[in-house]
């Protein structure tokens, strides 16, 4: 696959503080790549450097093989969807969407043609004469996306575009965005701190912590084979066990809880049931270990009959292939 964006040893310092130590990353054409990390991990700074709003302290960014560090943002062939949309409050929906084409002096007929296309794609046709303040959050978000994609950018940068929306709407828009990306074939670079969102949408996820990409891989790789303690704990829930000089990570859904009386299999750990939480599709069982100061979380199918008593002594086990060994 062709590389559309290449970050080469890109470094960013604000004053004396290094926000991003030299970092390299290749992003393939047409891919949905997510930069995932807690706030302050440098993901937005990285995105803003790609967009051209921040200058790398050193290193080079290549777009389609061309270095762009010296290219101002208004000449870069990519567009951004801003965190709080940054719609122009004094323009109608239509004027907002057309702004980019107007700036590039695209012929009026073509402007109209593309406008209709994008309005249909984002289902904004009926709202075209409204002002941004007359729109709901979800509608504003669609205008922000329409305003960006009408320019047919090579790359679309999205900075927590769903961050300001409520949970249900976010779920729906995640799928919509993913489909949009597939249909348009535009490369998406998506910044979020929401791991669920990243898992649901991305082809690849770059998990960032303190300016460093801790792991780059498919959602599956990231979830099943985390390479660092940070990734193991940031993505999903995980149980950590100390094992000689290393740490073992086991996902709650991989932990099996045994009755101590049943005998047979030798449990890997023993403990007492501390709490049980019913969440519908699954039941969370918290087990206080006897040998360690650790509480282990195990998942059980929600429709299984509840057989556990609080305080009951149980054994814990898991398959060897389900444990991930991490360096301390």
């Amino acid at each position, binding site marked *: 696959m062709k590389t559309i964006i290449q970050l080469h040893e890109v470094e960013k310092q604000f004053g004396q503080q290094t926000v991003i130590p030299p970092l390299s990353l290749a992003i393939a054409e047409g891919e949905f790549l997510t930069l995932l990390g807690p706030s302050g991990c440098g993901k937005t700074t990285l995105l803003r450097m790609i967009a051209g709003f921040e200058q790398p302290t050193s290193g080079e960014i290549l777009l389609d093989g061309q270095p762009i560090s010296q290219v101002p*943002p*208004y000449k870069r062939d990519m567009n*951004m969807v801003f965190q709080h949309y*940054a719609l122009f409050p004094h323009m109608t929906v239509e004027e907002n969407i057309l702004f980019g084409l107007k700036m590039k002096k695209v012929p009026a007929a073509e402007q109209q043609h593309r406008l209709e296309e994008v309005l249909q794609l984002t289902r904004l046709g009926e709202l075209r004469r409204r002002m941004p303040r007359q729109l709901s959050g979800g509608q504003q978000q669609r205008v922000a996306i329409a*305003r960006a994609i009408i*320019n047919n950018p090579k790359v679309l940068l999205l900075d927590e575009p769903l961050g300001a929306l409520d949970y249900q709407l976010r779920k729906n828009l995640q799928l919509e965005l993913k489909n949009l990306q597939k249909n348009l074939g535009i490369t998406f670079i998506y910044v979020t701190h929401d791991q669920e969102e990243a898992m649901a949408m991305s082809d690849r996820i770059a998990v960032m912590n303190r300016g460093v990409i801790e792991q780059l891989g498919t959602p599956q790789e990231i979830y099943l084979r985390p390479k660092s303690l940070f990734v193991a704990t940031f993505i999903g829930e995980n149980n950590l066990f100390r094992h000689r000089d290393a740490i073992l990570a086991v996902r709650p859904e991989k932990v099996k809880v045994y009755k101590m009386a049943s005998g047979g299999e030798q449990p890997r750990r023993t403990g007492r049931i501390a709490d049980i939480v019913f969440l519908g599709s699954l039941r969370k069982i918290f087990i206080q270990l006897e040998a360690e100061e650790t509480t282990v979380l195990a998942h059980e199918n929600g429709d299984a009959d509840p057989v556990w008593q609080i305080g009951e002594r149980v054994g814990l086990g898991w398959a060897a292939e389900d444990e991930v060994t991490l360096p301390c």
Partner: protein
Amino acid sequence: MLSRTRWLSVPALLWLAFFFLIPLLLVIALSFLERGTYGQVVYAFTLNNYSRIADPLYGEVLLETLAVSLLTTFLTLLIGYPLAYHIARLERGWQHTWLLLVMMPFWINFLVRSYAWVVILRSQGVINTLLLSLGLIDQPLSLLYNSAAVLLGMVYALLPFMVLPVYVSLEQLDRRKLEAAYDLGASPWRAFWHITLPLTKSGVVTGSILVFVSSIGMFVVPDVMGGAKSALIGNVIQNQFLSARDWPFGSALSIVLMLLSVMLIFLYFRAIRVQEREGREER
């Protein structure tokens, strides 16, 4: 909630009623009365004061005043907007320093500052002395007592009234909207024209009205820096009250001036609203 906080406006309303509304009504009443032989007010109804204003002499002064005021507004905008823009782009600490500098002239009495200009501009003043001693001129330039000097003084005096509101609106401008414009291919200049300027219009409107209204009634600057030739309507009104002792006529002039200002501000607002609507419909 409303009924409880409503009381907070009472001091201001009382103040305005006693020191603005009642004097205004007195001035209106006065403008329909006659002047006695010795400058006292005679309580007899007349429209004479208003018909006197029709005299081309006053019309000329009024036109001159309007021209100077409009020009002052335009120049303060031309100088003040870039200054406000510069300040709004500075770091917090520097912003405060610059704003302090902009407001510093207010600490010194206005009359004193006007005379300071006289010291600078007169024939034996700072500029002329310097140019003469450098041999660049052999006759002192007449920098004072003309319309240009009046304009200079007005712009100097009223600049802060433009800078402050424009600064406030620039300060409130969301930088991300500008970034969005750059992102969509707008050069810095076009982003300014399409985004910054329209979004700071409220500051420009407020500043323009403050400057215009202040300059239309200004009499100290033309008095001190303009000399006898460059009298504006403010000076004429001042003279009616102080030297000519014709309070009814002075009142009539004040009322006309006030109506004129209100009318112009109204037209200004309407022009802006029309422009806004056209801007929306154009595609």
